[in-house]
């Protein structure tokens, strides 16, 4: 259980160091026509380089399975709605949660409505269990 706390801490430090936790920087990346900041490509590149190296051996050793493989409407519609929300505020879930430490009204409102949005999604017929 201590591992979950440690992993959360390390993940959060990574978000702050990388600039991901600063919505202004995220929007400077998403707005490719403005004063474009490609830094977040390196965040994703660095993170995926690590997971690509270690995930498959761990998944094999622990015999984990991921039942969902279909590219379907909920996936595409959900990703599109998520992307719109991301582009409005510059917050995706991890940065928004660690930004609660800013004690800013926008972070509290965003996280509260994000939870509400997740609960609202139960009306979707094929709502996933995770």
């Amino acid at each position, binding site marked *: 259980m201590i591992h979950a706390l440690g992993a959360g801490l390390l993940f959060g430090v990574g978000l702050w160091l990388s600039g991901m*936790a600063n919505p202004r920087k995220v929007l400077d990346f998403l707005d490719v026509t403005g004063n474009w900041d490609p830094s977040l490509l390196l965040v994703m590149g660095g993170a995926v380089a690590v997971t690509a190296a270690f995930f498959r051996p761990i998944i094999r050793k622990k015999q984990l399975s991921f039942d969902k493989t*279909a590219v379907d409407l909920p996936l595409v519609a959900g990703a599109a709605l998520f992307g719109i929300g991301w582009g409005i505020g510059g917050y995706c879930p991890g940065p928004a949660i660690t930004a609660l430490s800013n004690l800013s009204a926008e972070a509290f409102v965003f996280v509260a409505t994000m939870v509400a949005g997740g609960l609202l999604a139960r009306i979707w017929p094929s709502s996933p269990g995770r």
Partner: protein
Amino acid sequence: MANFTPVASLIGGVLIGLASVWLLAANGRIAGISGILHGLFAQPPGDRSWRVLFITGLVAAGFAWHAFVAPAPVREGFGLGWAAAAGLLVGFGTRIGGGCTSGHGVCGLGRFSLRSLVAVMVFMGAGMATAYVMRHVL
């Protein structure tokens, strides 16, 4: 590109990747933040304790960062109505789409999932289009 921070961003990304590997190796869990958050409110209640601990670590990292490295960023002119609209869309979208930047991005791409690759392309595209509209049209 005066705001480009390649070294810090690359190292930060590596730390995010290592944290994801840590959670998978120790707990057999995918570090998808939206999934961890939504799972807190799942009915019937299941494995909440590791989710609470991970989220606690995530928030504690922010407090530590502000105390020892840099003050919390302040943003002016971002209305709470926009924050609420964005939060609803992100919560709803990540729930039906089964993941976000971490679950589909960092973890999904790391295990070469086609489903996650499609999700990443869609939310990146939608995010870029929306950021353009917010900054240059509205």
